[in-house]
């Protein structure tokens, strides 16, 4: 009985603690979630139309590199603002171009989609590492600069309840800020427009879609390219909005965590965003519990857990989610299955 009482009290303390730290954490959570969410949107668009893409990690990395390289090369000539804007544009284009490659491999050539994605990841790691060593490392430390985040005036930020939420979305750089709009727009587009219906049709039953006159190949190309452009934006976020530098392999598994967020969100944009926020929260909590240790017994327990357990929190969560604890979520029926037009086989 006493054990139960203690447990209830601990859970209560944990709840109170989370409620007190969360307002300050919100902007950090969104910043950590942004690359994951954009990567997950890439996954949603690809898989909804029937193409598996595990190369998101590699696409992010390539885009991060070329976006940074652009900003870095033009920084002195154009000034910080325009060079970063151009860098972001290049990153998105690189993402889209790699999307063309992935679409060609998976839709036209009908290569094994897992192998195509794996190839993307390996190639991206090698290419960016090599070029980084060749171009960026020898030329010194001066970075491309980073976007200074926006700050809400204190009068608004200090409003009760709404304040922290507004701060979460507006004390950010432009990419993180636009994320919410992208998510909402995609959610509406996927479930309320003709394009969305066609996308889902070619992902669920391409043959049926084909019989009613939808060009399956075209639809798949379009969505893979569009999705990969979002992965490119995620890469731009990493180098140009978040860290201001490029490091070899800096995506550090984010592309795969993005896939987990996609599965967690059952292949919907809003769900994927929620999944990304969940991972962002795990990462942020891992950082914050060390800095703001709560009072009482809960604090004692938290202090006694070594810091690397907190650092591992988002990865542990990935494993748990992928192991299916959140329930079986069903992928689109034709996910990963190349479509062969009848009579063409």
């Amino acid at each position, binding site marked *: 009985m006493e054990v139960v009482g203690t447990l209830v009290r601990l859970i209560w303390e944990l709840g109170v603690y989370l409620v007190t730290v969360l307002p300050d954490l919100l*902007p950090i959570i969104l910043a950590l979630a942004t690359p994951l969410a954009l990567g997950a949107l890439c996954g949603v668009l690809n898989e909804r139309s029937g193409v598996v893409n595990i190369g998101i990690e590699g696409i992010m990395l390539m885009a991060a590199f070329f976006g940074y390289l652009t900003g870095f090369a033009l920084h002195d000539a154009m000034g910080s603002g325009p060079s970063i804007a151009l860098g972001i544009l290049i990153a998105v284009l690189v993402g889209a171009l790699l999307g063309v490659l992935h679409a060609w491999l998976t839709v036209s050539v009908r290569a094994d989609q897992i192998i195509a994605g794996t190839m993307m990841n390996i190639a991206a790691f090698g290419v960016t590492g090599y070029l980084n060593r060749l171009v960026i*490392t020898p030329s010194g430390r001066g970075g491309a600069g980073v976007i200074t*985040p926006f700050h809400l005036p204190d009068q608004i930020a200090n409003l009760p309840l709404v304040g922290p939420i507004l701060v979460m979305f507006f004390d950010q750089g432009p990419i993180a800020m636009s994320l919410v709009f992208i998510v909402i727009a995609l959610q509406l587009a996927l479930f309320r427009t003709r394009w969305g219906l066609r996308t889902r049709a070619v992902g669920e039953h391409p043959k049926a879609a084909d019989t009613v006159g939808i060009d399956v190949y075209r639809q798949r190309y379009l969505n893979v390219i569009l999705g990969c452009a979002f992965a490119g934006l995620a890469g731009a976020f990493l180098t140009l909005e978040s860290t201001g530098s490029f490091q070899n392999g800096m995506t550090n598994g984010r592309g795969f965590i993005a896939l987990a967020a996609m599965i967690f969100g059952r292949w919907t944009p809003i769900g994927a965003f929620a999944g990304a926020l969940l991972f962002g929260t795990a990462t942020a909590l891992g950082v914050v519990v*060390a*800095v703001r240790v709560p009072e009482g017994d809960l604090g004692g327990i938290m202090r006694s857990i070594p*810091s690397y357990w907190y*650092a591992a929190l988002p990865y542990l969560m990935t494993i748990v989610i992928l192991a299916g604890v959140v329930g079986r979520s069903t992928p689109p029926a034709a996910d990963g299955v190349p479509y062969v037009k009848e009579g063409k086989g």
Partner: protein
Amino acid sequence: MKRLLAFGLAFGLVVAGCGGGGLGGGGGLKIGMVTDIGQLEDKSFNEFSWKGVQDGASAVGGSAKNIVTKDIADYKQNIQSFVDQKYDVIVTVGFLIGTDTLAAAKANPGIQFFGVDQFIPDPIPANYQGLLFNEAQAGYLAGIVAGTITKSSKIGAVGGREDVPPVVNYIKGYENAAKSVKPGVQVLVNYVGDFNAPDKGEASAKTMIGQGADVVFQVAGLTGAGVLRAACNAKIWGIGVDVDQYQSLPDAKACIVTSAEKRLQNATRDAIKRFKDKGKQSGNFTNDATNDGIGYSPIRNLNPVPAGLEDKLKQAIADMKSGKLKPVP
């Protein structure tokens, strides 16, 4: 296949040959330095170690040459090229090159090796000395600055990993110093578990700032770049580590007050002099306040510099020299 191999070898030789550069001089000691990955003018470990090697070479009437390492895989070959050219002293820079340096020292007992930031485990060859630094003392100086300038009586420190002793030493010294100049100061410490995650560093520093911290000290490599970025964005003070980060990290110029420094230039210079005067050097040599091996970078961004701050720092250095002050009791 054979032709390809020959081409590869030739290419390797050209690359190795290109890296050179340095100071002439006829007879005397031939001193070679192999840098860590990156470039020579990095305003950090490579550059200052090299300056010290040059100083040391001119002090003992020798000549100095360097090879800039481009990739981890080249450490061994770069060391070997100095060995092949019969150099008397080889200095290698950075923790990562330690393994290859140890192997080269064992294989070439006639050559003196020095390793900057390399702790050598037993058994230590008689011709290999690690040049280490008393991080706790350097951190102590940073702590004096932080404790003096904080208005909120809350300061922060972000460390890379808790299982890396130099990181912990820096932060312990920092904490103790801040408490000694400002009793009751609260020191928020976080080890993010990663030297390569600026976003986590930023998140950590933001949390500390949200808690009211108005000075943050970073001991976290690249993670620390995120820490200083958060500090600059929030318009609070940042303190750098190892070298003068006002110079090495231009993005953080706006808010760096000082850096807890390892005096690399003194360390390599003195090592070469020791070798000239006393012959073969072995063991792990600690650079600290007694031999000007640690210090603080010029105070910046403070207008005005608080009265007595420089005096407190000088006094602390003097007391650490005399042994009166132990940063970590």
